[in-house]
């Protein structure tokens, strides 16, 4: 066990003095910047249908949501009946280059489950001709239907919550210094009315 002389000697050692000074400065700076305060969780801004949210790479305007027994433009599959939740959104690519609809839009525009977990859509289709959405080109607003296949035990609720993640350009996103549009934190949520169209045989 160290005796008093050893402790005094250690305290006089400039290395330990330097380390203690650095630790003290770190503690004081953390306290001054509010690091020991209680973390504040900022509530997400909540929007209604028709509001445009611009989150860096994407600008989205959710328009309407519905539940049906067919995909947009499709028909009921009598052999394998399923239900689908559809969110129709106007999407604009705000980056300088075309990208796939199955990239950022699918990753950033999500359904929030009852357990508050993000669920990505299974399919993205163009609203006008119901083809599978391909590339989204810069500064062209395109209407897209995001489709979620619902579980067999799905219980209809007249409202659903959808979330949007921010995505910002980072100049040195990777170790090789390559830049990329990197997904950020949840940035907004939309509480949308969900139309029940399960009694219809023809798609909207």
């Amino acid at each position, binding site marked *: 066990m160290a005796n008093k002389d*050893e402790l005094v000697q250690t305290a006089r*050692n*400039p*290395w*330990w003095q*330097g380390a203690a000074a650095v630790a003290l400065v770190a503690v004081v700076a953390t306290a001054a910047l509010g690091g020991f305060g209680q973390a504040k969780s900022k509530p997400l801004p909540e929007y209604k249908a028709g509001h445009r949210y611009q989150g860096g790479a994407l600008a989205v305007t959710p328009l309407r949501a519905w539940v049906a027994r067919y995909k947009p433009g499709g028909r009921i599959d009598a052999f394998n009946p399923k239900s689908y939740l559809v969110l129709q959104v106007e999407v604009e690519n705000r980056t*300088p*280059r*075309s990208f796939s609809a199955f990239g950022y839009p699918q990753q950033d525009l999500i359904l929030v489950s009852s357990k508050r977990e993000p669920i990505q859509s299974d399919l993205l289709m163009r609203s*006008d*001709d119901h*083809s*599978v959405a*391909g*590339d989204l*080109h*810069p*500064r*062209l*607003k*395109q209407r897209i239907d995001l489709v979620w296949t619902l579980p067999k035990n799905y219980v209809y609720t007249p409202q659903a919550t959808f979330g949007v993640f921010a995505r910002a350009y980072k100049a*040195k996103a990777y170790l*090789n*210094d*390559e*830049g990329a549009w990197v997904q950020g934190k949840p940035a907004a949520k939309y509480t949308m009315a969900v139309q029940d169209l399960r009694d219809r045989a023809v798609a909207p």
Partner: protein
Amino acid sequence: MSAPAAARTAWRLPRWRWRDALWILLALIAVVALRKGESSYEQRDTPLVQHAQGLGRVEGRNFAVDVTGFKAAHAYLLKGDYSHPEDYLLRTPGVWLSVVAKVEARDQSGYVGAQLLTRDGLTYVASSQDRPKLKGINLRERVVVPGLPESGAWFFEVPADRLQGAHLQFYWGNGLPRGGDSLVDVDLGIDAARARKLMAEAKPVLDLRP
């Protein structure tokens, strides 16, 4: 001196010397200077741009493209397929620009990529094989084999106000060209008057049915 005291002396930290701090400072200055002088990722990965003007034949590494014309349209009328047999209209929120060309591979088989670069730096990649679905015409992702040139067209969806000053760019492969590979940049010569003429001649519906 006792044995435990000798062991403690062996574990003692080295004495602080100002010379050490100087070495650390010099090392930090060297790291910062080297990082500042380092080329950026974009500089290291930039392709070799080969400029060309107007229509005609251009050559890049392993490919040649002969552009014979281009035209704009607001929508295409297409023939349906087995799943949707009815004819249908393919619209765009902008305008369609089709670029008619003949493509050759020179040494190895693969794809020739095409994109449109607007004067404000936006890049529009040629539309996919399914949009418009024109087998044997849409050049996107069409395999070209040396000795067997392919004719067809690339289709671009562009905002109508961004046609002026647009450049066509070609490269080998589906992804962007790697550093040092060729990127052929063709100035289509679309000035304000040409852009107005293109839009004036753009058909509301261009019939592309066979």
